[in-house]
Protein backbone atom coordinates (compact mmCIF):
# COMPACT_ATOMS: atom_id res chain seq x y z
CA UNK A 1 0.00 0.00 0.00
CA UNK A 2 2.81 2.38 0.83
CA UNK A 3 4.26 2.19 -2.67
CA UNK A 4 1.83 4.38 -4.50
CA UNK A 5 2.45 8.03 -4.12
CA UNK A 6 -0.11 10.77 -3.94
CA UNK A 7 -0.74 11.98 -7.45
CA UNK A 8 -2.88 14.79 -8.77
CA UNK A 9 -6.23 14.29 -10.38
CA UNK A 10 -4.69 14.92 -13.78
CA UNK A 11 -3.86 11.88 -15.85
CA UNK A 12 -0.11 11.41 -16.04
CA UNK A 13 1.49 12.45 -19.26
CA UNK A 14 4.74 10.52 -19.15
CA UNK A 15 5.18 6.78 -18.95
CA UNK A 16 3.89 5.64 -15.57
CA UNK A 17 6.74 4.79 -13.27
CA UNK A 18 4.62 2.50 -11.15
CA UNK A 19 3.97 -1.10 -12.06
CA UNK A 20 1.43 -3.76 -11.33
CA UNK A 21 2.12 -3.41 -7.61
CA UNK A 22 0.30 -0.09 -7.68
CA UNK A 23 -2.68 -1.67 -9.37
CA UNK A 24 -2.71 -4.35 -6.68
CA UNK A 25 -2.47 -1.63 -4.04
CA UNK A 26 -5.51 0.06 -5.58
CA UNK A 27 -7.64 -3.10 -5.46
CA UNK A 28 -8.86 -2.80 -1.85
CA UNK A 29 -10.21 0.64 -2.78
CA UNK A 30 -11.69 0.00 -6.21
CA UNK A 31 -12.28 -3.78 -5.89
CA UNK A 32 -15.79 -3.61 -4.38
CA UNK A 33 -16.87 -1.23 -7.15
CA UNK A 34 -15.41 -3.58 -9.76
CA UNK A 35 -17.25 -6.55 -8.26
CA UNK A 36 -20.54 -4.66 -8.36
CA UNK A 37 -20.01 -3.44 -11.94
CA UNK A 38 -18.93 -6.84 -13.23
CA UNK A 39 -21.41 -8.86 -11.18
CA UNK A 40 -24.58 -6.86 -11.64
CA UNK A 41 -24.05 -4.86 -14.86
CA UNK A 42 -21.62 -6.60 -17.20
CA UNK A 43 -22.35 -10.22 -16.29
CA UNK A 44 -26.13 -9.88 -16.82
CA UNK A 45 -25.31 -8.30 -20.16
CA UNK A 46 -23.36 -11.45 -21.07
CA UNK A 47 -26.19 -13.66 -19.76
CA UNK A 48 -28.58 -11.68 -21.94
CA UNK A 49 -26.45 -12.15 -25.04
CA UNK A 50 -26.16 -15.89 -24.39
CA UNK A 51 -29.89 -16.28 -23.66
CA UNK A 52 -30.73 -14.57 -26.92
CA UNK A 53 -29.39 -17.62 -28.77
CA UNK A 54 -31.05 -20.25 -26.54
CA UNK A 55 -34.47 -21.83 -26.40
CA UNK A 56 -35.80 -21.14 -22.91
CA UNK A 57 -39.10 -22.68 -21.89
CA UNK A 58 -41.84 -20.72 -20.15
CA UNK A 59 -40.80 -22.31 -16.85
CA UNK A 60 -37.24 -21.14 -17.42
CA UNK A 61 -35.56 -24.36 -18.52
CA UNK A 62 -32.76 -23.91 -21.06
CA UNK A 63 -33.44 -26.33 -23.93
CA UNK A 64 -30.29 -25.66 -25.89
CA UNK A 65 -29.10 -23.45 -28.69
CA UNK A 66 -31.37 -22.25 -31.46
CA UNK A 67 -28.86 -20.07 -33.26
CA UNK A 68 -30.45 -16.84 -34.38
CA UNK A 69 -34.06 -18.07 -34.30
CA UNK A 70 -34.99 -15.64 -31.54
CA UNK A 71 -33.73 -12.75 -33.64
CA UNK A 72 -35.73 -14.05 -36.60
CA UNK A 73 -38.80 -14.08 -34.37
CA UNK A 74 -38.11 -10.48 -33.29
CA UNK A 75 -37.68 -9.13 -36.81
CA UNK A 76 -40.48 -11.16 -38.37
CA UNK A 77 -42.97 -9.97 -35.77
CA UNK A 78 -45.41 -7.98 -37.93
CA UNK A 79 -45.51 -5.08 -35.50
CA UNK A 80 -41.73 -4.81 -35.13
CA UNK A 81 -41.05 -2.10 -37.72
CA UNK A 82 -43.98 0.11 -36.73
CA UNK A 83 -42.72 -0.22 -33.14
CA UNK A 84 -39.19 0.59 -34.25
CA UNK A 85 -40.36 3.75 -36.03
CA UNK A 86 -42.51 4.71 -33.03
CA UNK A 87 -39.48 4.33 -30.77
CA UNK A 88 -37.52 6.77 -32.93
CA UNK A 89 -40.45 9.21 -32.93
CA UNK A 90 -40.72 8.85 -29.15
CA UNK A 91 -37.05 9.66 -28.57
CA UNK A 92 -36.73 12.46 -31.13
CA UNK A 93 -39.97 14.28 -30.28
CA UNK A 94 -39.53 14.03 -26.50
CA UNK A 95 -35.89 15.10 -26.49
CA UNK A 96 -36.39 17.94 -29.01
CA UNK A 97 -39.44 19.35 -27.22
CA UNK A 98 -37.69 19.01 -23.86
CA UNK A 99 -34.62 20.92 -24.99
CA UNK A 100 -36.56 23.75 -26.66
CA UNK A 101 -38.86 24.27 -23.66
CA UNK A 102 -35.95 23.96 -21.22
CA UNK A 103 -34.01 26.68 -23.03
CA UNK A 104 -36.96 29.02 -22.43
CA UNK A 105 -37.40 27.90 -18.82
CA UNK A 106 -33.71 28.39 -18.10
CA UNK A 107 -33.91 31.96 -19.46
CA UNK A 108 -36.77 32.73 -17.08
CA UNK A 109 -35.09 31.06 -14.08
CA UNK A 110 -31.80 32.80 -14.81
CA UNK A 111 -33.29 36.29 -14.51
CA UNK A 112 -33.42 37.96 -11.12
CA UNK A 113 -36.90 38.49 -9.69
CA UNK A 114 -38.48 38.19 -6.26
CA UNK A 115 -39.60 34.60 -5.64
CA UNK A 116 -37.21 33.06 -8.15
CA UNK A 117 -35.97 30.57 -5.59
CA UNK A 118 -39.46 29.23 -5.00
CA UNK A 119 -40.03 28.83 -8.73
CA UNK A 120 -36.72 26.98 -9.06
CA UNK A 121 -37.71 24.65 -6.22
CA UNK A 122 -41.07 23.96 -7.86
CA UNK A 123 -39.35 23.01 -11.10
CA UNK A 124 -37.46 20.25 -9.23
CA UNK A 125 -40.61 18.42 -8.12
CA UNK A 126 -41.18 16.22 -11.22
CA UNK A 127 -37.49 15.26 -11.07
CA UNK A 128 -37.71 13.96 -7.50
CA UNK A 129 -41.22 12.55 -7.69
CA UNK A 130 -41.79 9.03 -8.95
CA UNK A 131 -42.48 9.01 -12.69
CA UNK A 132 -45.07 6.28 -12.12
CA UNK A 133 -46.99 8.51 -9.73
CA UNK A 134 -46.76 11.61 -11.94
CA UNK A 135 -48.03 9.57 -14.89
CA UNK A 136 -50.87 8.07 -12.85
CA UNK A 137 -52.30 11.46 -11.96
CA UNK A 138 -52.37 12.37 -15.67
CA UNK A 139 -53.93 9.00 -16.49
CA UNK A 140 -56.67 9.64 -13.92
CA UNK A 141 -57.11 13.20 -15.20
CA UNK A 142 -57.81 11.92 -18.71
CA UNK A 143 -60.44 9.38 -17.67
CA UNK A 144 -63.84 9.87 -19.33
CA UNK A 145 -66.50 11.69 -17.26
CA UNK A 146 -64.66 11.99 -13.93
CA UNK A 147 -61.09 12.78 -15.03
CA UNK A 148 -60.24 16.34 -14.01
CA UNK A 149 -58.09 17.23 -17.07
CA UNK A 150 -60.79 15.95 -19.40
CA UNK A 151 -63.39 17.91 -17.41
CA UNK A 152 -61.29 21.04 -17.81
CA UNK A 153 -60.99 20.49 -21.56
CA UNK A 154 -64.79 20.15 -21.75
CA UNK A 155 -65.30 23.27 -19.61
CA UNK A 156 -63.07 25.42 -21.83
CA UNK A 157 -64.72 24.01 -24.94
CA UNK A 158 -61.80 22.08 -26.41
CA UNK A 159 -63.61 18.78 -26.07
CA UNK A 160 -67.29 18.32 -26.92
CA UNK A 161 -68.47 15.59 -24.58
CA UNK A 162 -67.42 14.51 -21.08
CA UNK A 163 -66.79 11.12 -22.60
CA UNK A 164 -63.68 12.77 -23.98
CA UNK A 165 -61.87 11.10 -26.81
CA UNK A 166 -61.19 8.08 -24.64
CA UNK A 167 -57.72 9.60 -24.33
CA UNK A 168 -56.23 6.58 -22.61
CA UNK A 169 -58.30 4.01 -24.51
CA UNK A 170 -57.09 4.99 -27.97
CA UNK A 171 -53.46 4.06 -28.74
CA UNK A 172 -52.67 7.25 -30.67
CA UNK A 173 -54.00 9.72 -28.11
CA UNK A 174 -52.56 7.69 -25.22
CA UNK A 175 -49.16 7.76 -26.94
CA UNK A 176 -49.44 11.51 -27.58
CA UNK A 177 -50.24 12.16 -23.91
CA UNK A 178 -47.33 9.92 -22.93
CA UNK A 179 -45.06 12.23 -24.91
CA UNK A 180 -46.45 15.20 -22.97
CA UNK A 181 -45.72 13.45 -19.65
CA UNK A 182 -42.25 12.38 -20.80
CA UNK A 183 -41.38 15.96 -21.74
CA UNK A 184 -42.74 17.23 -18.42
CA UNK A 185 -40.61 14.87 -16.32
CA UNK A 186 -37.50 15.50 -18.46
CA UNK A 187 -37.69 19.30 -18.11
CA UNK A 188 -36.15 19.68 -14.61
CA UNK A 189 -32.86 17.91 -15.34
CA UNK A 190 -32.50 19.59 -18.73
CA UNK A 191 -33.36 23.04 -17.40
CA UNK A 192 -30.91 22.71 -14.54
CA UNK A 193 -28.14 21.56 -16.85
CA UNK A 194 -28.75 24.56 -19.11
CA UNK A 195 -28.79 26.83 -16.04
CA UNK A 196 -25.37 25.44 -15.14
CA UNK A 197 -24.23 26.24 -18.66
CA UNK A 198 -25.59 29.80 -18.44
CA UNK A 199 -23.33 30.38 -15.44
CA UNK A 200 -20.31 29.91 -17.63
CA UNK A 201 -21.34 32.76 -19.96
CA UNK A 202 -18.97 35.57 -19.00
CA UNK A 203 -20.66 38.82 -18.04
CA UNK A 204 -18.11 40.85 -20.03
CA UNK A 205 -19.06 39.12 -23.26
CA UNK A 206 -22.72 40.03 -22.75
CA UNK A 207 -21.67 43.57 -21.87
CA UNK A 208 -19.61 43.76 -25.05
CA UNK A 209 -22.51 42.51 -27.16
CA UNK A 210 -24.70 45.20 -25.63
CA UNK A 211 -22.08 47.88 -26.40
CA UNK A 212 -22.00 46.72 -30.00
CA UNK A 213 -25.71 47.37 -30.19
CA UNK A 214 -26.86 43.74 -30.40
CA UNK A 215 -30.50 43.27 -29.41
CA UNK A 216 -31.64 40.57 -26.97
CA UNK A 217 -32.43 38.05 -29.73
CA UNK A 218 -29.12 38.65 -31.48
CA UNK A 219 -27.25 38.37 -28.18
CA UNK A 220 -29.04 35.14 -27.31
CA UNK A 221 -28.51 33.36 -30.61
CA UNK A 222 -25.09 34.85 -31.37
CA UNK A 223 -23.46 34.85 -27.95
CA UNK A 224 -25.35 32.86 -25.31
CA UNK A 225 -26.43 29.81 -27.31
CA UNK A 226 -22.93 28.97 -28.63
CA UNK A 227 -21.66 29.11 -25.03
CA UNK A 228 -24.29 26.56 -24.05
CA UNK A 229 -23.00 24.02 -26.54
CA UNK A 230 -21.36 21.64 -24.08
CA UNK A 231 -24.18 21.86 -21.53
CA UNK A 232 -26.71 21.11 -24.27
CA UNK A 233 -24.60 18.28 -25.63
CA UNK A 234 -24.56 16.51 -22.26
CA UNK A 235 -28.24 17.21 -21.60
CA UNK A 236 -29.27 15.81 -25.00
CA UNK A 237 -27.10 12.70 -24.62
CA UNK A 238 -28.45 11.84 -21.17
CA UNK A 239 -32.00 12.56 -22.29
CA UNK A 240 -31.67 10.27 -25.31
CA UNK A 241 -30.54 7.41 -23.07
CA UNK A 242 -33.25 8.08 -20.47
CA UNK A 243 -36.10 8.48 -22.94
CA UNK A 244 -35.11 5.42 -24.96
CA UNK A 245 -35.02 3.33 -21.76
CA UNK A 246 -38.19 4.83 -20.34
CA UNK A 247 -40.79 2.26 -19.32
CA UNK A 248 -43.12 3.60 -16.60
CA UNK A 249 -44.89 6.33 -18.59
CA UNK A 250 -45.97 4.09 -21.46
CA UNK A 251 -46.62 1.19 -19.09
CA UNK A 252 -49.15 3.26 -17.14
CA UNK A 253 -50.66 5.26 -20.02
CA UNK A 254 -50.88 2.58 -22.71
CA UNK A 255 -50.34 -0.68 -20.79
CA UNK A 256 -54.01 -1.62 -20.62
CA UNK A 257 -54.61 -1.05 -24.34
CA UNK A 258 -54.72 -4.38 -26.19
CA UNK A 259 -52.46 -4.84 -29.21
CA UNK A 260 -49.17 -3.23 -30.11
CA UNK A 261 -50.20 0.17 -31.50
CA UNK A 262 -48.67 2.27 -28.75
CA UNK A 263 -45.58 0.21 -27.93
CA UNK A 264 -41.92 1.13 -28.08
CA UNK A 265 -39.08 -1.38 -28.10
CA UNK A 266 -38.79 -1.05 -24.33
CA UNK A 267 -42.45 -1.82 -23.60
CA UNK A 268 -42.35 -4.69 -26.11
CA UNK A 269 -39.42 -6.25 -24.20
CA UNK A 270 -41.50 -6.20 -21.04
CA UNK A 271 -44.50 -7.66 -22.85
CA UNK A 272 -42.33 -10.58 -23.97
CA UNK A 273 -41.07 -11.14 -20.41
CA UNK A 274 -44.26 -10.57 -18.46
CA UNK A 275 -47.17 -11.51 -20.71
CA UNK A 276 -45.65 -14.20 -22.91
CA UNK A 277 -42.86 -15.42 -20.59
CA UNK A 278 -40.48 -15.61 -23.55
CA UNK A 279 -37.24 -14.64 -21.87
CA UNK A 280 -35.26 -15.86 -24.89
CA UNK A 281 -37.05 -13.62 -27.39
CA UNK A 282 -37.02 -10.77 -24.87
CA UNK A 283 -33.24 -11.21 -24.61
CA UNK A 284 -32.86 -11.02 -28.37
CA UNK A 285 -34.93 -7.85 -28.51
CA UNK A 286 -32.95 -6.43 -25.56
CA UNK A 287 -29.74 -7.08 -27.48
CA UNK A 288 -31.23 -5.20 -30.43
CA UNK A 289 -32.17 -2.33 -28.08
CA UNK A 290 -28.71 -2.47 -26.51
CA UNK A 291 -27.07 -2.18 -29.91
CA UNK A 292 -29.34 0.71 -30.90
CA UNK A 293 -28.38 2.60 -27.73
CA UNK A 294 -24.68 1.97 -28.29
CA UNK A 295 -24.90 3.09 -31.92
CA UNK A 296 -26.83 6.25 -31.06
CA UNK A 297 -24.41 7.12 -28.26
CA UNK A 298 -21.34 6.35 -30.37
CA UNK A 299 -22.53 8.41 -33.34
CA UNK A 300 -23.59 11.21 -31.04
CA UNK A 301 -20.33 11.28 -29.09
CA UNK A 302 -18.36 11.22 -32.33
CA UNK A 303 -20.32 14.03 -33.96
CA UNK A 304 -20.99 16.29 -30.99
CA UNK A 305 -18.04 15.39 -28.74
CA UNK A 306 -19.89 16.25 -25.52
CA UNK A 307 -17.19 15.05 -23.14
CA UNK A 308 -13.90 16.34 -24.39
CA UNK A 309 -12.39 16.45 -20.94
CA UNK A 310 -12.73 12.93 -19.63
Amino acid at each position, binding site marked *: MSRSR*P*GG*AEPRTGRPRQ*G*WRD*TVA*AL*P*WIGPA*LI*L*IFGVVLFPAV*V*MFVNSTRDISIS*GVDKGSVGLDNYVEVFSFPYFWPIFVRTIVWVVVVVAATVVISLGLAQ*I*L*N*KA*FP*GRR*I*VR*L*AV*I*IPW*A*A*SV*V*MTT*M*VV*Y*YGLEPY*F*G*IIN*TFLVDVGLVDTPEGYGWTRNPDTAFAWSIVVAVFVSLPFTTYTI*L*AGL*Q*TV*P*GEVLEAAKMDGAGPARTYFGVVLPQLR*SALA*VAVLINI*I*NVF*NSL*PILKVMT*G*SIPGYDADTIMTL*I*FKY*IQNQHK*VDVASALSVVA*FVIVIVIVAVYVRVVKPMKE*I
Partner: protein
Amino acid sequence: MAITVAAPGLEPIEAPTPSGRRRTYTEDQVPLGKLIVRMLAGLIVLLVFILPYTIMFFGSVKTKAQIRSVDPTYFPTEWHWENYLNMWSTPETPLVQNLISTIVISVFATLLVLLVAMPAAYYTARFAFPGRMVFLFLVIVTQMLQPAVLTSGLFRQFVALDLIDTWAAMIFINAAFNLSFAVWIMHSFFAGVPKEVDEAAQIDGAGRLAVLFRINLPLVWPGIVTAIVFTFVACWNEFAASLVILSTAGNQPLSVALTKFVGQYETSWHYVFGVSIVAIIPVVVLFMLIEKRLVGGLTAGSVK
Protein backbone atom coordinates in the same frame (compact mmCIF):
# COMPACT_ATOMS: atom_id res chain seq x y z
CA MET B 1 -21.90 26.01 -0.39
CA ALA B 2 -18.58 25.75 -2.16
CA ILE B 3 -15.62 23.73 -1.04
CA THR B 4 -13.57 25.99 1.17
CA VAL B 5 -10.21 24.81 -0.08
CA ALA B 6 -9.92 25.68 -3.73
CA ALA B 7 -7.06 24.42 -5.81
CA PRO B 8 -4.57 27.18 -6.55
CA GLY B 9 -5.27 28.97 -9.77
CA LEU B 10 -8.70 27.48 -10.09
CA GLU B 11 -11.34 30.03 -11.01
CA PRO B 12 -14.40 29.89 -8.75
CA ILE B 13 -16.53 29.17 -11.81
CA GLU B 14 -14.64 25.94 -12.38
CA ALA B 15 -14.98 24.68 -8.81
CA PRO B 16 -17.11 21.55 -8.49
CA THR B 17 -19.70 23.42 -6.45
CA PRO B 18 -20.39 26.90 -7.64
CA SER B 19 -22.31 28.85 -5.05
CA GLY B 20 -25.97 29.32 -5.79
CA ARG B 21 -25.52 32.96 -6.81
CA ARG B 22 -24.98 33.95 -10.35
CA ARG B 23 -22.60 36.73 -11.02
CA THR B 24 -23.59 37.64 -14.55
CA TYR B 25 -26.61 39.20 -16.22
CA THR B 26 -28.51 40.86 -13.46
CA GLU B 27 -26.19 43.13 -11.54
CA ASP B 28 -27.76 46.18 -13.15
CA GLN B 29 -30.98 47.79 -12.00
CA VAL B 30 -34.07 46.18 -13.47
CA PRO B 31 -37.01 48.43 -14.32
CA LEU B 32 -40.20 47.62 -12.46
CA GLY B 33 -42.14 46.74 -15.62
CA LYS B 34 -39.61 44.11 -16.59
CA LEU B 35 -39.59 42.76 -13.06
CA ILE B 36 -43.38 42.30 -13.13
CA VAL B 37 -43.20 40.48 -16.46
CA ARG B 38 -40.54 38.16 -15.01
CA MET B 39 -42.60 37.51 -11.90
CA LEU B 40 -45.64 36.69 -14.00
CA ALA B 41 -43.61 34.30 -16.14
CA GLY B 42 -42.20 32.77 -12.95
CA LEU B 43 -45.69 32.39 -11.50
CA ILE B 44 -46.93 30.58 -14.62
CA VAL B 45 -43.93 28.21 -14.47
CA LEU B 46 -44.58 27.59 -10.78
CA LEU B 47 -48.26 26.80 -11.36
CA VAL B 48 -47.55 24.43 -14.27
CA PHE B 49 -44.97 22.48 -12.29
CA ILE B 50 -47.08 22.04 -9.16
CA LEU B 51 -50.31 21.37 -11.10
CA PRO B 52 -50.14 17.53 -11.26
CA TYR B 53 -49.20 17.34 -7.59
CA THR B 54 -51.98 19.75 -6.64
CA ILE B 55 -54.48 17.54 -8.49
CA MET B 56 -52.99 14.61 -6.61
CA PHE B 57 -53.36 16.32 -3.26
CA PHE B 58 -56.93 17.52 -3.85
CA GLY B 59 -57.85 14.03 -5.05
CA SER B 60 -56.34 12.46 -1.96
CA VAL B 61 -58.84 14.17 0.36
CA LYS B 62 -61.93 13.40 -1.70
CA THR B 63 -64.14 10.36 -1.11
CA LYS B 64 -64.32 7.61 -3.67
CA ALA B 65 -67.77 8.81 -4.70
CA GLN B 66 -66.49 12.37 -5.14
CA ILE B 67 -63.38 11.48 -7.12
CA ARG B 68 -65.38 9.19 -9.42
CA SER B 69 -68.29 11.58 -9.77
CA VAL B 70 -69.38 12.27 -13.35
CA ASP B 71 -69.65 15.92 -12.36
CA PRO B 72 -66.29 16.38 -10.62
CA THR B 73 -65.27 19.49 -8.71
CA TYR B 74 -61.82 21.02 -9.17
CA PHE B 75 -61.45 21.72 -5.46
CA PRO B 76 -62.41 19.35 -2.67
CA THR B 77 -65.70 20.37 -1.11
CA GLU B 78 -64.91 18.51 2.12
CA TRP B 79 -61.54 17.44 3.44
CA HIS B 80 -61.43 13.74 4.14
CA TRP B 81 -58.15 13.44 6.01
CA GLU B 82 -59.15 9.99 7.23
CA ASN B 83 -58.15 8.74 3.75
CA TYR B 84 -54.55 8.97 4.88
CA LEU B 85 -55.29 6.38 7.59
CA ASN B 86 -57.71 4.16 5.70
CA MET B 87 -55.72 3.90 2.47
CA TRP B 88 -53.15 1.54 4.00
CA SER B 89 -55.69 -1.28 4.27
CA THR B 90 -56.97 -1.10 0.69
CA PRO B 91 -57.43 -4.63 -0.79
CA GLU B 92 -55.60 -4.08 -4.11
CA THR B 93 -52.09 -4.43 -2.67
CA PRO B 94 -50.46 -4.61 0.79
CA LEU B 95 -49.41 -0.95 0.83
CA VAL B 96 -47.74 -1.03 4.25
CA GLN B 97 -45.45 -3.82 3.08
CA ASN B 98 -44.88 -1.96 -0.20
CA LEU B 99 -43.80 1.13 1.73
CA ILE B 100 -41.49 -0.93 3.94
CA SER B 101 -40.10 -2.57 0.81
CA THR B 102 -39.40 0.80 -0.80
CA ILE B 103 -37.67 2.04 2.36
CA VAL B 104 -35.56 -1.09 2.97
CA ILE B 105 -34.38 -1.34 -0.65
CA SER B 106 -33.57 2.37 -0.91
CA VAL B 107 -31.76 2.61 2.41
CA PHE B 108 -29.59 -0.47 1.95
CA ALA B 109 -28.82 0.24 -1.71
CA THR B 110 -27.75 3.77 -0.79
CA LEU B 111 -25.54 2.48 2.04
CA LEU B 112 -23.98 -0.05 -0.31
CA VAL B 113 -23.29 2.65 -2.91
CA LEU B 114 -21.68 4.86 -0.28
CA LEU B 115 -19.54 2.02 1.03
CA VAL B 116 -18.37 1.02 -2.44
CA ALA B 117 -18.20 4.35 -4.26
CA MET B 118 -16.42 6.49 -1.69
CA PRO B 119 -13.15 4.54 -1.47
CA ALA B 120 -13.07 4.13 -5.26
CA ALA B 121 -13.74 7.82 -5.87
CA TYR B 122 -11.15 8.87 -3.31
CA TYR B 123 -8.43 6.57 -4.54
CA THR B 124 -8.88 7.32 -8.23
CA ALA B 125 -8.92 11.05 -7.52
CA ARG B 126 -5.71 10.86 -5.50
CA PHE B 127 -3.44 8.16 -6.84
CA ALA B 128 -2.20 7.29 -10.28
CA PHE B 129 -1.97 3.58 -11.02
CA PRO B 130 -1.97 1.49 -14.18
CA GLY B 131 -5.59 0.79 -15.03
CA ARG B 132 -6.97 3.92 -13.42
CA MET B 133 -8.31 5.31 -16.70
CA VAL B 134 -9.72 1.90 -17.60
CA PHE B 135 -11.60 1.88 -14.31
CA LEU B 136 -12.99 5.37 -14.86
CA PHE B 137 -13.97 4.42 -18.41
CA LEU B 138 -15.81 1.39 -17.05
CA VAL B 139 -17.68 3.68 -14.66
CA ILE B 140 -18.80 5.89 -17.56
CA VAL B 141 -19.91 2.89 -19.58
CA THR B 142 -22.19 1.71 -16.77
CA GLN B 143 -23.65 5.21 -16.64
CA MET B 144 -24.88 4.65 -20.19
CA LEU B 145 -26.65 1.41 -19.22
CA GLN B 146 -29.91 1.20 -17.35
CA PRO B 147 -31.64 -1.77 -15.72
CA ALA B 148 -34.51 -1.61 -18.25
CA VAL B 149 -32.39 -2.74 -21.20
CA LEU B 150 -30.70 -5.50 -19.15
CA THR B 151 -33.81 -6.78 -17.39
CA SER B 152 -33.97 -10.15 -19.12
CA GLY B 153 -30.32 -10.82 -18.24
CA LEU B 154 -30.81 -9.67 -14.66
CA PHE B 155 -33.90 -11.84 -14.37
CA ARG B 156 -32.09 -15.00 -15.52
CA GLN B 157 -29.05 -14.26 -13.39
CA PHE B 158 -31.01 -13.76 -10.17
CA VAL B 159 -33.08 -16.87 -10.90
CA ALA B 160 -29.81 -18.82 -11.17
CA LEU B 161 -28.54 -17.26 -7.93
CA ASP B 162 -31.85 -18.14 -6.25
CA LEU B 163 -32.25 -14.48 -5.33
CA ILE B 164 -35.24 -13.84 -7.57
CA ASP B 165 -38.08 -12.04 -5.82
CA THR B 166 -35.89 -10.88 -2.92
CA TRP B 167 -35.02 -7.45 -1.59
CA ALA B 168 -31.35 -8.42 -1.78
CA ALA B 169 -31.55 -8.68 -5.57
CA MET B 170 -33.03 -5.20 -5.87
CA ILE B 171 -30.51 -3.79 -3.39
CA PHE B 172 -27.67 -5.09 -5.59
CA ILE B 173 -29.30 -3.91 -8.81
CA ASN B 174 -30.08 -0.43 -7.51
CA ALA B 175 -26.60 -0.10 -6.02
CA ALA B 176 -24.84 -1.26 -9.18
CA PHE B 177 -26.71 1.04 -11.55
CA ASN B 178 -26.35 4.10 -9.34
CA LEU B 179 -22.72 3.45 -8.55
CA SER B 180 -21.30 5.27 -11.55
CA PHE B 181 -22.96 8.57 -10.82
CA ALA B 182 -21.88 8.43 -7.17
CA VAL B 183 -18.28 7.60 -8.08
CA TRP B 184 -18.25 10.34 -10.67
CA ILE B 185 -19.55 13.15 -8.48
CA MET B 186 -17.45 12.14 -5.44
CA HIS B 187 -14.40 11.83 -7.68
CA SER B 188 -14.78 15.42 -8.85
CA PHE B 189 -15.10 16.63 -5.26
CA PHE B 190 -12.08 14.65 -4.00
CA ALA B 191 -10.08 15.93 -6.96
CA GLY B 192 -10.88 19.47 -5.81
CA VAL B 193 -8.97 18.95 -2.55
CA PRO B 194 -5.29 19.79 -3.08
CA LYS B 195 -3.04 16.79 -2.61
CA GLU B 196 -0.77 18.92 -0.36
CA VAL B 197 -3.47 18.64 2.30
CA ASP B 198 -3.14 14.84 2.18
CA GLU B 199 0.63 14.90 2.11
CA ALA B 200 0.80 17.18 5.15
CA ALA B 201 -1.44 14.83 7.09
CA GLN B 202 0.60 11.80 6.05
CA ILE B 203 3.81 13.49 7.15
CA ASP B 204 2.12 13.99 10.50
CA GLY B 205 1.73 10.21 10.62
CA ALA B 206 -1.92 9.78 9.64
CA GLY B 207 -2.81 6.49 7.91
CA ARG B 208 -4.59 6.35 4.58
CA LEU B 209 -8.02 5.76 6.11
CA ALA B 210 -7.49 8.51 8.66
CA VAL B 211 -6.60 10.88 5.84
CA LEU B 212 -9.79 9.95 4.02
CA PHE B 213 -12.13 10.21 6.98
CA ARG B 214 -10.59 12.99 9.08
CA ILE B 215 -9.02 15.23 6.45
CA ASN B 216 -11.02 14.75 3.25
CA LEU B 217 -14.55 14.05 4.42
CA PRO B 218 -15.01 17.40 6.16
CA LEU B 219 -14.01 19.07 2.89
CA VAL B 220 -16.02 17.00 0.43
CA TRP B 221 -19.19 16.33 2.42
CA PRO B 222 -21.34 18.40 0.00
CA GLY B 223 -20.35 15.98 -2.76
CA ILE B 224 -21.11 12.98 -0.56
CA VAL B 225 -24.51 14.38 0.40
CA THR B 226 -25.33 15.05 -3.26
CA ALA B 227 -24.37 11.49 -4.19
CA ILE B 228 -26.40 10.05 -1.30
CA VAL B 229 -29.52 12.06 -2.13
CA PHE B 230 -29.32 11.23 -5.82
CA THR B 231 -28.85 7.53 -5.19
CA PHE B 232 -31.59 7.41 -2.60
CA VAL B 233 -34.14 9.18 -4.80
CA ALA B 234 -33.27 7.02 -7.81
CA CYS B 235 -33.71 3.82 -5.75
CA TRP B 236 -36.92 5.14 -4.21
CA ASN B 237 -38.47 5.61 -7.65
CA GLU B 238 -36.96 2.61 -9.48
CA PHE B 239 -39.55 0.76 -11.52
CA ALA B 240 -38.39 -1.36 -14.48
CA ALA B 241 -36.21 -3.94 -12.70
CA SER B 242 -38.49 -4.20 -9.66
CA LEU B 243 -41.39 -4.97 -11.99
CA VAL B 244 -39.69 -8.13 -13.25
CA ILE B 245 -37.52 -9.19 -10.29
CA LEU B 246 -40.12 -8.84 -7.53
CA SER B 247 -43.22 -10.95 -8.17
CA THR B 248 -44.69 -11.35 -4.67
CA ALA B 249 -47.04 -8.45 -3.93
CA GLY B 250 -45.60 -7.88 -0.46
CA ASN B 251 -42.03 -7.61 -1.77
CA GLN B 252 -42.81 -4.94 -4.35
CA PRO B 253 -42.01 -1.28 -3.83
CA LEU B 254 -44.73 1.36 -4.07
CA SER B 255 -43.78 2.33 -7.63
CA VAL B 256 -44.70 -1.15 -8.88
CA ALA B 257 -47.59 -1.74 -6.47
CA LEU B 258 -49.45 1.43 -7.47
CA THR B 259 -49.60 0.45 -11.15
CA LYS B 260 -51.96 -2.37 -10.15
CA PHE B 261 -54.66 0.22 -9.62
CA VAL B 262 -54.64 1.17 -13.31
CA GLY B 263 -57.33 -0.47 -15.39
CA GLN B 264 -59.23 -1.76 -12.38
CA TYR B 265 -62.99 -1.75 -12.64
CA GLU B 266 -63.32 0.83 -9.86
CA THR B 267 -59.94 2.32 -9.09
CA SER B 268 -59.60 3.89 -5.63
CA TRP B 269 -57.87 6.97 -7.02
CA HIS B 270 -58.15 8.84 -3.72
CA TYR B 271 -55.97 6.17 -2.09
CA VAL B 272 -53.51 6.09 -5.00
CA PHE B 273 -53.02 9.82 -4.59
CA GLY B 274 -52.77 9.69 -0.81
CA VAL B 275 -50.00 7.11 -1.03
CA SER B 276 -48.34 9.08 -3.83
CA ILE B 277 -48.29 12.26 -1.73
CA VAL B 278 -46.76 10.35 1.20
CA ALA B 279 -44.14 8.80 -1.11
CA ILE B 280 -43.31 12.00 -2.99
CA ILE B 281 -42.92 14.51 -0.16
CA PRO B 282 -39.77 13.03 1.47
CA VAL B 283 -37.81 12.76 -1.78
CA VAL B 284 -38.86 16.21 -2.97
CA VAL B 285 -37.66 17.66 0.34
CA LEU B 286 -34.35 15.79 -0.01
CA PHE B 287 -33.90 17.12 -3.54
CA MET B 288 -34.67 20.65 -2.45
CA LEU B 289 -31.93 20.39 0.17
CA ILE B 290 -29.37 19.92 -2.59
CA GLU B 291 -30.99 22.39 -5.02
CA LYS B 292 -27.99 24.70 -5.01
CA ARG B 293 -25.70 21.88 -6.04
CA LEU B 294 -28.03 20.79 -8.81
CA VAL B 295 -26.83 23.83 -10.74
CA GLY B 296 -23.29 22.96 -11.65
CA GLY B 297 -22.35 20.36 -9.06
CA LEU B 298 -24.40 17.80 -10.90
CA THR B 299 -22.57 18.11 -14.16
CA ALA B 300 -19.14 18.84 -12.71
CA GLY B 301 -16.63 16.90 -14.72
CA SER B 302 -18.75 16.73 -17.83
CA VAL B 303 -19.82 20.31 -18.43
CA LYS B 304 -16.94 22.70 -18.51
